[in-house]
């Protein structure tokens, strides 16, 4: 009875089917534990977590500098900016835009710096469905190599005020 004090001598090792089940479950848990580092290093899909402290003002300045030197056009009134292959690209989240629009080359690797200058935002790249959390004060460096050409939309998937659902951005891969 689980609502009464247990009988004397209740402290026993498990037996029978229960013992088998615990053994199987434990083995599965151990395998999964080992899969965690394996998937990370073998899959090469995860952020290494590279990030730096940055003030919103300093980050904003870098973004503006990046746009000034690398702008190649405009989409929907948003500057379209092409970083040099292997170089740094910047993306600023603020209520309620992702600034600027980026033009990348397929097969090239970039260091994409993402940060916010006001609230927390959610970088959500569609239709890839790739999601990162964006915090003010943190410069999150994502080393990315786009492999598929096309147009991608960035949404915001962390609540950032009443215009949250209007916060979008663009990445074009050629």
């Amino acid at each position, binding site marked *: 009875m689980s609502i009464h004090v247990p009988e004397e001598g209740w402290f026993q090792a498990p037996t029978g089917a229960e013992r088998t089940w615990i053994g199987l479950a434990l083995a599965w848990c151990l395998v999964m534990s080992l899969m*965690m580092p394996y998937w990370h290093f073998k899959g090469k899909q995860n952020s290494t977590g590279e990030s730096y402290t940055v003030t919103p003002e300093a980050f904003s300045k870098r973004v503006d500098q990046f746009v000034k030197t690398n702008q190649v056009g405009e989409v929907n009134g948003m500057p379209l900016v092409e970083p040099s292959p292997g170089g740094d690209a910047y993306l600023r989240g603020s209520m309620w835009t992702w600034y600027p629009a980026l033009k990348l080359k397929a097969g090239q690797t970039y260091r994409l710096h993402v940060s916010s200058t006001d609230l927390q935002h959610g970088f959500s790249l569609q239709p890839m469905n790739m999601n990162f959390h964006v915090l003010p004060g943190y410069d999150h460096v994502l080393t990315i190599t786009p492999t598929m050409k096309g147009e991608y939309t960035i949404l915001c998937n962390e609540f950032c005020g009443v215009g949250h*659902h209007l916060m979008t951005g663009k990445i074009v891969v050629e």
Partner: protein
Amino acid sequence: MSTAAVIEDLAGALPPAPPVGNHAGAVRTCDTTGLPVCLVAEKFIQLNAVVAVVALLAGGVAALLIALTRWPAVHLLDAVWYYRLVTFHGLNMLIFWILFMEVAILYFAGTVLLNSRLFSGKLAWAAFALMLAGTLLVDIEILRGKADVMMTSYVPLRASSNFYLGIILVAVGTLIGVGNFFGTVYIAKRDHTYSGSVPLVVFGAIAAAVIAVVTLLHGAVVMIPTWLWSLDLVATVDPGWYRLVWWGLGHQSQQVNVCAMVAVWYLLATITTGAKPLNQAVCRAAFVLYILFINIASAHHLLVDPGVGASWKIWNTSYGMYLAVLASMIHGFTVPASVEVALRKKGHDRGLFGWLAAAPWKNPAFSGFFLSLLIFGFIGGITGVTLGTQQINILAHNTLRIPGHFHATVVGGTTLAFMALTYYVVPLIFRREFPLRWLARAQPWVFGIGITIVSLGMSLAGSYGVPRRHWDSELTGAQFTYGFGSGANVMLGVLGMGAILAVTGLLIYIGLTVAAVFFGRRIEGRAMTPW
């Protein structure tokens, strides 16, 4: 009416000569179970349960409105009220309904099952008053539009200072309630009101209470500076630090819920089928695993965050998390196995699942508990373990897959288990019969099936990338447009329809409970009518 027929096999299993309690008069003997009920504890079990149900009602109304807003064809609320009610729903459900219920369960487990009086009526009042004041403060601030910050209130998003104060009051009140429970366990031991080890259900409650203390301390560490910041007494609160500590609160509190739910499973398995745990050492060890390892698992909320590195993420998603998962896998075996053994012993021995077919399905406490076990184990557990891997987390972070997961754990699991428990709390603690018993028998099914559909709709919509906490997945008027496609829209419709069913189940539950408590036939001097 013989006791044994009412509550399965209980009479035969009563300890031979129960040691003397420490009640000093304020006690009655339950006419159904023969268990001693401390009258002070009884009053606070009632008070806490009533507030819990009111919070559930408030959260349930909000649930319907926000779910119908996510359904693109309906899109009911405007953006402001959608975000406001998501905040309102999250807090009333996850915090107020659950916490008030848990305090009631702790008072029950500490007194009735240990044959003890409540440690202190004064502390119980203090806990109740603080929690109630905090609840009202939070709800008022949200409805006044001063706290559109979601239940996570991630800084630097800012609510009025009274919102944070309200949360702190609820946390302090709960901590006092938990302290009162530990006091009760202490005096029971001191006064030798029971002999040997505590019953398994009490052990589970103690595990829940230990985790609750750790959880609430994290809450204090994060909410007090945030409150001071909202008063401009502190300049900034680091958002990365906030997320790290906040999830020490947010995730671990879910483990409190799991512990409480598993304790309720064991309780209801015994009450409804006479089940007896196969091996008490195994069940207890599994509770200890929760206490030891769950803190680490809160890392899975930060898998795509800056500020914490890759090795931290890998380490924390591997060994420790799986030891906590192991605990759930153990309970997921031992609970149904104990029911199987009990039913087979009664002669329901045909085939592999003959015992299950012969189970007391017309007892809503049984069907609720068993559905809770299935939904939590299969949907909640599997989605949880997959979302907790880094690779899948990248695909799922902040999409609707996340609420899809936890509506299977904390709603299909914990909430449904607490609802099932109510089918005994009202007759045994409020001493009133449920009216409309056919409706009560249907209720767990309506709610359980409804919330399963909600959970699947959310999970599938989320796998298309649809964000959570998002008013317009069609992005009307945004600078760049994007469509998730018709598949996603269908799934959002499934979510909406499931919500109608689930909220119907929730309203039936509340309607029946209110009708029973206020107008139900009194049970005095006789056992409750068996389900």
